[in-house]
């Protein structure tokens, strides 16, 4: 298969996660455990013999869900509630989650009320990352999660099974990072949409199957000739629980941007950190949980040892990006809180950036297009001026 055909396969899973995981369940007889973003360790559910699926915002208009959640909530939570109200989650064996974003908690309560026969379990992850007890508390939480999964499957989960899952997930992250490195180095021409499909499909597909697909994809990309794209090198930042609309990503690139890197949840944020493969697996997962935030800081966590704005400036330097586009899901409170820190840091450094607020309902792209074009033009001029001065 060539890379185009492989991406088509990934696209089906990424864009139809419930249908594809339902089909997997029917074909393999495995339970399906849905989870909410962004820090749930899929490794644990996998070790329990389940298919872990990160529940996604879908593209359907929100209808019946409006009867259970206010319109001033982010697109992700409104969409999840809508899907639950429409019965889309009925086939799930459990929903388990650990992030305590207030909007997700609201959605979770509605989801539980709509799924009276499904385990909807919450294992609250400590979100204050730099306390002396943060690591211990994270381990306690993962132990509770393990016990909850054991209760579901009716037998203990062996440590070696968790380590096997960790190895499988690490391999997956490593290959996805390889794709990023190939793109950053200009070895392959991969669009922002394609990168998203590669990562998003990993969130919903069986990991071993996804690994096979990625191996084939990397081989195909290496075999296909490619020339580096020309344009304004742009870094994409933000968008946590939900994937940015691919139409928006396409529009940004159509305007002349080359997306060279990102810290999106459906991107680097999801794949940046591996779990230690030896020793006690719960210790390893707790360490991973804290390490993730240092690797790619997240505004949903509070962490005295992480500075997202500095991370972004360094990440832009590393990827040789000329400007940054911030994608902010409307009503995302952690992002709204942190944005002024980023804005001030970028203004101090004279790094151009553009804030785009996104919504579940795709907003008129034409208006945004003008803003993106202007931003790219300004960025281009600043880059030229800097080169001339150097």
């Amino acid at each position, binding site marked *: 298969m060539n890379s185009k055909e492989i991406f088509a396969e990934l696209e089906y899973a990424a864009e139809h996660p419930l249908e594809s995981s339902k089909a997997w369940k029917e074909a393999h007889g495995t339970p399906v455990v849905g989870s909410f973003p962004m820090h749930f360790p899929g490794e644990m559910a996998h070790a329990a013999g389940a298919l872990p699926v990160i529940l996604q915002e879908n593209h359907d208009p929100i209808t019946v869900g409006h009867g259970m959640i*206010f319109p001033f909530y982010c697109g992700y939570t409104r969409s999840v509630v809508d899907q639950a109200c429409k019965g889309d989650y009925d086939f799930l064996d459990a929903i388990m989650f650990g992030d305590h974003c207030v909007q997700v908690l*609201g959605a979770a309560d509605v989801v539980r*009320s709509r799924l009276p026969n499904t385990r909807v379990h919450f294992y609250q992850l400590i*979100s204050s990352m730099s306390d002396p007890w943060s690591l211990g508390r994270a381990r306690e939480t993962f132990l509770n999660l393990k016990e909850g999964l054991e209760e579901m499957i009716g037998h203990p989960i062996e440590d070696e099974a968790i380590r096997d899952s960790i190895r499988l997930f690490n391999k997956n992250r490593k290959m996805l990072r390889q794709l990023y490195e190939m793109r950053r180095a200009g070895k392959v021409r991969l669009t922002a949409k394609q990168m998203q499909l590669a990562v998003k499909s990993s969130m919903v597909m069986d990991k071993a199957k996804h690994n096979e697909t990625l191996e084939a994809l990397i081989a195909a990309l290496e075999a296909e000739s490619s020339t580096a794209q020309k344009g304004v090198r742009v870094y994409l930042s933000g968008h946590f629980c939900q994937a940015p609309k691919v139409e928006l990503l396409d529009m940004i690139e159509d305007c002349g941007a080359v997306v060279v890197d990102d810290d999106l949840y459906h991107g680097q944020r999801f794949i940046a950190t591996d779990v230690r493969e030896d020793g006690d697996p719960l210790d390893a997962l707790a360490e991973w949980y804290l390490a993730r935030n240092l690797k790619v800081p997240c505004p949903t966590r509070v962490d005295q040892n992480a500075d997202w704005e500095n991370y972004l400036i360094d990440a832009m330097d590393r990827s040789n990006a000329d400007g940054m586009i911030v994608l902010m899901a409307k009503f995302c409170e952690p992002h709204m809180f942190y944005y002024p820190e980023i804005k001030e840091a970028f203004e101090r450094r004279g790094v151009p950036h553009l804030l785009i607020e996104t919504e579940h309902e795709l907003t008129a792209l034409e208006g945004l297009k003008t803003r993106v074009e202007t931003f790219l033009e300004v960025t281009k001029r600043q880059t030229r001026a800097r080169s001339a001065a150097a």
Partner: protein
Amino acid sequence: MSQTIALPKKANRLRTASLNNKLVNDYWTEVFEAPKVGRKVCWYEGVAINPLMQAADVAWVHGEAWSALLAARNNEEPAQQASENRGYLKDLCSYARTHIGCGVMAQNKGEASGASFSDALGANALADNVPAPDMFISAYPYCSTGQQWDEMLYRLFKKKVPIFNISVPWVWGNKPDSVYLGGSEFREAVEYMKRQLRECVKFIEAQTGKPYDWDKLHEIMHYTKQAGQLRMEAMEMCATKPAPASFFDWTTSLAPVNFVPGGPAIVDYFEKVKLEIAERIANGEGTVPKERYRLFWDGIMNWNKIGWLANKFASYDAAMVAGRYTHMGFWHEHECIDANDPLEGMAINYLVCPINLSAPLMIEQIIKLCKFYEIDGVVLHAARTCRAFSNPQYMIAEAVARRLNLPVAMIEGDMVDESFYKDEVVSSRIEAMLEAIESRKRAGIAA
């Protein structure tokens, strides 16, 4: 913009509420004096951990209470403008925007003016004169926004002001033994909270450089428990018809069980309130001139509009008898407090505050209150920027309608951002609900 339309009837507010104003003014006067007399100042958010600070002679600024006070005294706009200028978007928690705005103003100014509370109030300049923090403590139940708000303050003050985070577990209930105030998960959460409260005390000791005065904490909690008990008893007396006091009175009376120092004054306050209620019951005096409807308020208060809303409902002959905000929090589980070993009772009260229960547990408590107070209808105030309170409201509406056959009115507003309140929309929703109550009454359906 303030409302100028005259309402035909006025609420019969509790006379003792004026004593509350004095307690509040005295407290803020002390806070404004704190730096001058060498007392450290702590900015904190979330549950009422002020006894912990009071025992260490640390002054405290509760972000929500401070933002509410600014709104109630029409002083909120400069702070909200300062936060907007820094790039905080309007859809963020308005409490946080207002409080962070004060931080922005303090940073811009460089040093405190030293103005007294009354001078600052007189000059309409409260926001930029609140003493800057020497420490932060975050203890937010349920709402992730609370912890992030403190983190942003910590960053705004350039990470130079020490911060302590108490992580409050949400009472969700994975296990079948989960009930209100009980079950293995709840017990674990209580123990976890107690561990963190002990660590918090160590943090406070480190900031003050003095050994912690546990005896003082026991004394404070002795008064707090008494105040909590008197308040609950006084509120329960409002099951009488006509209701002698309203949710709006209880909202005004939150300060003594939320941030006013624990001592004889808060006990005295609720004794007087209780007495006034007893007098009203004896005289058949209601909180509204004519009580035709008994309502329940779900959601947080709209601090810009307390008086306005109290009169508005009075003009509809509607007594807002009880509410989630007032009746399901603020030391309401006073029986759990052992003043000589107070951390457990404090932890329990923090965990079962009005937002920290998952919907099924919360709904049961609301149903009980609606039955006890013989409620005819439920007003759900969806505070636009407070998802913590708004989250379960559709489920609450569904539950009271199905189980108690109560009509509801969902209205939109906010805690301290007046711009989200649209009076005409509110009026039409309330009138529709009252009409539904009337039709039930006409049909002889007991609500």
